[in-house]
């Protein structure tokens, strides 16, 4: 490791604030774009499954008698 202590790694000779905030923002945005599609897909599938359930309970149930 280049830095001697945690303190030195955090301050980076005065540049710590810039470096760490840049890395923080970067990681935050990467997390967002990596998690968004999964959430979108799960939400959609849950919604579609719910619709199917409702349709089964609804008028289509009559077909079961045929």
């Amino acid at each position: 490791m280049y830095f001697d202590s945690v303190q030195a790694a955090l301050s980076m000779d005065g540049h710590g604030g810039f470096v760490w905030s840049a890395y923080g923002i970067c990681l935050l945005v990467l997390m967002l774009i990596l998690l968004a599609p999964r959430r979108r897909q799960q939400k959609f599938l849950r919604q579609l499954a719910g619709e199917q359930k409702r349709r089964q309970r609804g008028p289509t149930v009559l077909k079961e008698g045929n």
Partner: protein
Amino acid sequence: MWSFFHKLGSPPWLYRIAGTIVRWLLPVTLVALCVGLVWGLLYTAPDFRQGNSYRIIYIHVPAAVVALAGYYVMAIAGAVSLIWKMKMADVAMKSCAPIGAALTFIALVTGAIWGKPTWGTWWVWDARITSMLILLFLYLGVVALYEAYDNKEAAGKACAVLTLVGTVNIPIIYKSVDWWYSLHQPASIKFTGDSTIDPSMLYPLLLMIAAFYGVFTCCLLMNMRAEILEREARTNWVKKLALEYRA
């Protein structure tokens, strides 16, 4: 060869193969990202002139490189969907836009943060930075244009045209540091000739560029999967998938 293209146009096949690729690529990408971040942040020596602030290079350059590469992907997908009316190309183009916007945003923000200690200012209206800002607006423009249309086919066409016209911006971004006087430094990594960067700094940078490519690819494929499902909501295979999801 032709059967491969035929399959590429098949939504269920693309959905499945994209899922398989993500399952392998995502863990590898995340490991590379973690290793690269720690390496660049803590294990490299500081730059002799810029000190520690240069460490931002390990996120700034990869984000910018992949944001540009992403535009190529979007433009090619746009051209394919416009010329051959391939629906899956339209899906790919639409899925590129938000990721490209996010990466361009990272490049601009980290660039501004890097500029403060190095140039003494957060922002200058010089060629490189302004053309990157235009890239951000192009990506956001595609996202917004898709939402603006009710007719998805017309939306796809409009976005493809916007994307192709916006391609003009790409060589401008590349060449901006050579064509105009700029605070921004020229490229340090060159395919032809020697790179002006020490190997101890080059390797973590290359690793981070690879990791960002991985992030882009994974996000693109996952976005495409979600998009495919929504467009194919009425088909049997998607209905079956929803049933399995509930179970």
